[in-house]
């Protein structure tokens, strides 16, 4: 079990000693049982810090805004940002370090192990409780959750209501963080790439029909991209909603800009967006699962990126973010890479 009091003590001290500019953590949300991201600046505010199975947010996403802010300010801030990370979030930081987007001195990492549990899937929880309103959900002993409803407390085994990405998790322990709370444990229920294996049993024609139906639902809200730590490009290749136009951009440059996908949320354009984004995730996606959680129309996005992750693993023995000193997959090669076109 994570000692929340000890975690708060650590956080408070960091802020008191002004070792970090602020701390990215979790606090109780304003409506219902879910936690929300918290930006904690003062030691007194540490009291609101929470750690429970709804702390699903990958806070490293906010490091992107922080880096942009630091790069554009005249006097670069010399203290790091403090951040709470789970094992998957920690890997995201490693990818940012590998890609030299983030500098080690910009971040002070406090890791929390998911131990025998992880993050709850709200939809699975609702089904399990037959839509009874949940008042609170906490980590119990071992692999149990303790759920409080109007009828009182009940314990549920983690495996029943854990998010799919936790059931397939490859990184439940944030190795390499400055400080780590919780133990490294062997998780019995883990089945990496389980979802991917299931869909791969379908013949190609059925898989095409499956994805076509999924992309017909897509409303191009870009939540999947907006929530993803790895999508930090100032200007996205498929859509100009992050148009990096300045006063110096010439009319010719603007006129010649290719719109790789139209704004219309039609199936063809949705395919273009999603498959392009998936390709850009190869060797970078750490399977934090935020994209799938954020999607309002329930597209099983993780399957796309899992396909590329497993390919990277098989072909290049590469797991995104497992080692901060490893070079990025697509900008490096070794002499024993498969394929002899390069030799």
């Amino acid at each position: 079990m994570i000692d929340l009091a000890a975690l708060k003590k650590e956080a408070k001290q960091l802020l008191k000693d002004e070792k970090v500019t602020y701390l990215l953590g979790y606090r109780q949300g304003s409506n219902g049982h879910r936690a929300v991201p918290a930006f904690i600046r003062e030691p007194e505010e540490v009291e609101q810090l929470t750690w429970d199975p709804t702390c699903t947010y990958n806070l490293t996403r906010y490091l992107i805004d922080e880096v942009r802010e630091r790069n554009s300010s005249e006097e670069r801030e010399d203290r790091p940002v403090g951040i709470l990370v789970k094992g998957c979030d920690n890997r995201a930081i490693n990818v940012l370090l590998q890609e030299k987007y983030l500098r080690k001195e910009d971040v002070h990492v406090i890791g929390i192990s998911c131990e025998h549990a992880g993050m709850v899937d709200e939809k699975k929880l609702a089904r399990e409780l037959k839509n009874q309103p949940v008042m609170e959900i906490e980590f119990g002993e071992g692999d149990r959750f303790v759920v409080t409803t109007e009828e009182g407390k009940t314990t549920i085994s983690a495996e029943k209501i854990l998010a799919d990405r936790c059931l397939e998790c490859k990184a439940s322990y944030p190795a390499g963080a400055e400080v780590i709370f919780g133990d490294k444990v062997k998780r019995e229920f883990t089945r990496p790439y389980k979802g991917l294996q299931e869909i791969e049993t379908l013949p190609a024609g059925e898989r095409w029909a499956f994805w076509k139906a999924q992309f017909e639902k897509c409303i191009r809200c870009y939540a999947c991209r907006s929530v993803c730590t790895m999508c930090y490009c100032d200007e996205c290749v498929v859509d100009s909603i992050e148009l990096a136009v300045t006063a110096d951009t010439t009319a010719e440059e603007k006129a010649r800009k290719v719109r790789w996908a139209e704004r219309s949320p039609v199936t063809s354009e949705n395919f273009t967006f999603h498959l392009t984004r998936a390709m850009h995730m190869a060797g970078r996606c750490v399977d934090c699962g935020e994209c799938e959680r954020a999607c309002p129309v329930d597209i099983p996005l993780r399957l796309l990126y899992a396909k590329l992750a497993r390919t990277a693993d098989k072909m290049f023995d590469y797991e995104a973010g497992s080692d901060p000193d490893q070079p990025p997959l697509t900008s490096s090669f070794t002499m024993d890479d498969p394929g002899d076109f390069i030799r």
Partner: protein
Amino acid sequence: MENILTKQALPRWIEQLDAYQIYAPVREQEGWKYAIVDTPDSVTLDYPNTVLSLKSILFPQREVFLEFHSQNGRDLEVEELLPGDAQSVIFGVRPCDAKAISLMDKVFGGDYIDNYYWKRRNQTRLIGLACNEPVSPDCFCNAVDGAPYSTEGLDILMTDLGDRYFLESVTEKGEELLAVEDDLFQEAGKKDQKAVKDLRSGAEKKFERKIPELQNMPEILANLFDSDFWEQESMSCIRCGICTYLCPSCHCFDINDEVETAAPLKGVRVRTWDTCQFPDFTMHSSGHNPRSDRAARLRQRVSHKYRYFPEQYDAFLCTGCGRCIDKCPVGIDIVEVLNKAVDYEG
């Protein structure tokens, strides 16, 4: 007109409406959406609310305005492409979504009539379903001048009384729909009316979320225009479009030309949903962007709904459906923002 329809008789009523395309809520994985139903038996009204609101039918996410083609580069033909003539009936509309449509009516009417919107609107009849309790913990219709049994925007309102529905017609179009077989509907009696009344007062009490000082909100927001309140509240915003796309009353859109062939020129001009939350929504061609930071964009979304729209139309552009709160990936809560705005001193 107040009628009773037993639940078993519902499919028979729908059968009578064979002149119309019938939309009803259907399940889609974990959520619900409006879809055209072919079999009257499959219509179920036992559901919370749809993920994509009613606006996705009356104000679709993609709407083709016109088609253009040029044979030889010199002459150019442009053809208007209005929506088709299908008449529709939509069942199961929650009062928050219906009220949002009546707000949209103001936007798409006025000095300039938007023919695309109005052709669909005039060809559609909305049959509402009152909420006997909040369908989600995020609901707050009665905190924004609404009610779970409001008839605004509807042609008929149905109330679920357990084994039967209480139907009240709101408009002439609604009455027409009720003018079918004599024995399908019974006239509602005093017992039914009392059951409805009790349900409604019970429902009201179950809504917990409140917005203090609602009527003063335009002034409160005006006073906060330059404060760092917005910076604080928008810190976790990731600039996706979920809040605005799912909102039943958000109406911002983009217009783009989509070219099929360049020579000879052939293409269409389309309208697509857009959102004030995307960073380049207000960006000028020169690169100047009046709302370049997320604080300004959150301020715009909240102010449009609770200050600017009321200044123009004397109504809030929010009907309390709660979708933005439920689906925001980072838990930004407009009710909390408004509550904090009231007390904010800075």
